[in-house]
């Protein structure tokens, strides 16, 4: 039986004042904000996003492994944008690959000849 990850909080307070982490990592907040901003801009109905989120959650649970809600969230957003022709999946992968190369370039260390 799965044990719940309990992080039961104290009295209610704004997220800021009780130190609560709404997002576990910065990318989660960006993925959240993108969906909100696009919905606000009229690019999709929330229900359309929700249906993609339900599908992404179901796929993640069927695949097993560690569950990440915002990973599902991002996948749902990407699928929705791809199917509606706003941003296709391949261009996001292409840009991400470019960013990966940039990171590698910025990350290189200078300790390879010090031993």
């Amino acid at each position, binding site marked *: 039986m799965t044990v719940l990850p309990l992080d039961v909080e104290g009295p209610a307070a704004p997220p800021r004042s009780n130190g609560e982490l709404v997002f576990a990592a910065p990318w989660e907040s960006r993925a959240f904000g*993108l969906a909100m901003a696009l*919905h606000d*801009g009229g690019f999709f109905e929330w229900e359309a996003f929700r249906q993609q989120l339900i599908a992404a959650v179901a796929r993640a649970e069927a695949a097993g492994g560690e*569950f990440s809600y915002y990973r599902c969230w991002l996948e749902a957003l990407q699928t929705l944008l791809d199917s509606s022709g706003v941003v296709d999946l391949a261009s996001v*992968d292409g840009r*991400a690959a470019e*960013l990966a190369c940039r990171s590698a370039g910025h990350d290189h260390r200078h300790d390879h000849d010090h031993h």
Partner: protein
Amino acid sequence: MSPVPAPSDLPVELRTEALESILVEKGLVDPAVLDKFIKTYAEDVGPLNGAKVVAKAWTDPEYKARLLEDGTAAIAELGFKGPQGECIVVLENTPTRHHLVVCTLCSCYPWPVLGLPPGWYKDPAYRARAVREPRALLEEFGLSLGPEVEIKVFDSSSEVRYMVLPERPAGSEGLSEEELVPLVTREAMTGVAKARPPA
């Protein structure tokens, strides 16, 4: 030439950054709007809103009646509205009836009153077990309910978001509305706990 990682290997951080950069380049997303949404939900909108609603309902019978009649409108009276709050139904706990809220499919949650959902609410185990074995689940949250208490589980649908109105704790009779607010936790408003007893 440096090897290009296969898309499936690309970290989610990079895919998010890539999507954002494309959307901003195309002029489809304004970074200022994006930042404002994040700031609002990371810093301002949280369960304190719901706690104020509950404390008012505990002290103002007419407000409580309005809240149970039309949750969305009564909550908006206090200035709380916005995404995921278009249709909020408030469920009143009593000594013989306890409500538990879940969204089995995708973690829908009443953002204007509770903020964004915590980790446990999104967890597959919670979403599956809230419906299948709510009594055992509540035991794990530290809430033991006697056999005389009926447990009603409410699964969020495409439209409706639920919030629990917990029972006012014993010993809180002399407290003001303001003093009652800290007794109301997020967990009490989702039904995995009772409101805190006064210190």
